[in-house]
C-alpha cells in the first residue's frame, strides 16, 4: 500500500472540500493509495494574506472531518506572515488534528525570518514540507524557493528533518543540491514521469531519503506512482519510498497525538 505525501483539494471536481475529498479518495482507492496528506485549500493565491492561510486551513480541516482514517492535514503557513503562521500552527497542529506544515511560494525559505515557524513545527514534531522549483523558462513565482534556498535552511536547522518539494523541479540539480544534507528528504511529486528520476535519487541519496507524493488533483496519481513502480530499484526500496519513509517521519507526531495507524 501507498502513503501519498502531496495532495491538494484543487484540480478535482466538487463544490465543497468534503465532496472533493470524497472524489479523491474514490480515485485513490483504484490505485492502492492508503493514506493521503493534504495541504492548501480549494483556491490558491501566490501571495496569500493571513486570512487566505486561515481559510485554506479551514477547508483542509473540513475535508478531513470524515476521513481521519485515510487522510492527514498539513498546516499552510507563509514566511510573509510569521505571526499568523505561528497562530495557525497552534490552532491546527498543537490544538488540532494536523501533523505537518506546508510552505509554498511568496517567501524564500532561506530567509532567517521563517526560523520561528521551523522551530515551533520541530517542537511539535510536525513534518516540514517546502515547495521548491528551479525553472529554466523564466516563470519562477515571486518568492519561490529553490533547492539552494532549502540548503541554507537545512544548514541552520541541521537536526530538523526537511522535505525538498518536487525534488527541486529540475531533479538532476535538486538531488545534487541536497546530497550532503542528511536532514533533507525529497518529494518526487508533481513533475512528468520521466524515467531515471527515482534511480538517480536512490543512487545519490539512498532510498531512505526519497518519498512518494502525487500533487493530485492537478497531477494524476498514476503518473506519479509509475515513477516508483517503473523504477529499476529493489522491492525493498520501493516499499520505503511508497510508504515507510513518510510513515517514519510522521510517527513521532502521530504517537504524540495518539493516532493509531
Amino acid at each position, binding site marked *: 500500500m501507498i502513503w501519498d505525501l502531496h495532495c491538494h483539494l484543487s484540480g478535482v471536481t466538487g463544490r465543497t472540500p468534503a465532496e472533493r475529498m470524497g472524489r479523491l479518495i474514490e480515485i485513490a482507492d483504484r490505485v492502492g493509495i492508503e493514506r493521503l496528506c493534504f495541504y492548501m485549500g480549494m483556491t490558491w493565491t501566490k501571495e496569500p494574506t493571513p486570512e487566505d492561510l486561515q481559510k485554506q486551513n479551514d477547508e483542509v480541516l473540513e475535508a478531513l472531518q470524515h476521513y481521519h482514517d485515510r487522510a492527514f492535514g498539513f498546516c499552510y503557513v507563509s514566511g510573509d506572515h510569521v505571526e499568523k503562521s505561528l497562530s495557525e500552527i497552534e490552532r491546527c497542529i498543537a490544538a488540532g488534528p494536523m501533523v505537518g506544515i506546508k510552505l509554498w511560494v511568496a517567501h524564500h525559505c532561506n530567509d532567517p525570518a521563517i526560523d520561528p515557524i521551523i522551530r515551533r513545527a520541530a517542537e511539535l514534531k510536525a513534518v516540514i514540507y517546502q515547495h521548491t522549483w528551479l525553472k529554466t523558462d523564466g516563470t519562477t513565482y515571486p518568492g519561490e524557493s529553490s533547492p539552494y534556498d532549502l540548503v541554507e535552511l537545512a544548514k541552520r536547522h541541521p537536526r530538523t528533518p526537511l522535505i525538498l518539494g518536487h525534488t527541486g523541479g529540475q531533479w538532476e540539480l535538486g538531488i545534487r543540491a541536497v546530497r550532503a544534507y542528511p536532514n533533507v528528504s525529497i518529494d518526487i511529486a508533481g513533475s512528468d514521469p520521466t524515467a531515471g528520476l527515482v534511480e538517480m535519487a536512490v543512487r545519490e541519496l539512498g532510498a531512505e531519503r526519497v518519498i512518494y507524493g502525487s500533487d493530485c488533483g492537478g497531477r*494524476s496519481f498514476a503518473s506519479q506512482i*509509475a515513477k516508483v513502480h517503473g*523504477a529499476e530499484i529493489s522491492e525493498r526500496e520501493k516499499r520505503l519510498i511508497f510508504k515507510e519513509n513518510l510513515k517514519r517521519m510522521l510517527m513521532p507526531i502521530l504517537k504524540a497525538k495518539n493516532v493509531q495507524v
Partner: protein
Amino acid sequence: MIDVNVYLHRWPFRRVPGDEPEALVAKLRAAGVTQAWCGSFDALLHRDIAAVNSRLAVECRKFGPGFLEPFGAVNPTLPDWQDDIRRCQETHSMKGIRLHPNYHGYKLDDPRVVELLSAAAARKLLVQIAVTMEDERTQHPLVQVPHVDLAPLVAQLESLTALRVVVLNAFRGAKVDVVDKLASSRRAWFEIATKENVAGVEALVQQVGHERVLFGSYAPLFIHESAVWKLRESPLGGGQLEAIQTGNARQLIGAA
C-alpha cells in the same frame, strides 16, 4: 495493446533507463504491448534526417519485426524534404510519419506544411505531430523549445479531407478549445502520455469521445507504467478500454 508513442535512439540530454532497443522491446512486451509506433529522438536535432529514418527502419526490423512500427521524421525546412517522405513510404514501407515542428523551427501555418500534409494525405500516410517533448520548465537552458501551436491544424483538417493526424504529447501545450475543434473534425486522435489530473483519461474521453483516444506512453523518456496506470485510474467501460488500448489504433493503421 498498441502503444502509438514510443521512441528509439537517444534522448539528447541524458541517458534514460530502457533506451537500448532490446530492453525497450522487452519492457513493452512484458506490459502487454503488441505493437509500438516508433519515432527517433535523433530526429529532433540531426539534420541528416534520411539517415535517421534509415537507422530507425533497420532497428525496428532488427529488434522488433512486426512489433516496432517505424514512423519516420520529415522536416519541411530541409532542402528536398519531399524525397524523405517518398523514402519513408517507398523505401522503408512506413505507415506514417512523425513531425516535430517546434524542434525543427516552423509553425503549422507555414505554406510548406500545407504541402507536406497534402503529400502525406495523398499517400495515405498517418501523420503524428508531437506538441511537447519536455516540460518547458526543465528544458536545457541553451535549448528552450516552445509547445507546438495546433490551432492552424483545424483549417488543414478542414481542407485536406484525406488527412488523419495523431497528436502526441498534447496536454501540456494544447488549448482546450483547439483540442475540441480538432476532435470535431473526426480525423484527429489524441494519446494519453501527457494527460494529467486525477482520472484524466476519463475526463479526456468525456471531452473528445473514446473513439478519438489512443494508448501512448512516450517510452522510454516517460516511464511506460504511467500510461498503463492511467487506464487503471479512470473507470472505462462499455468497450472504451479496448478501443483506447487497441481498437482505435488498429483501425487507424489498418487504413494506412
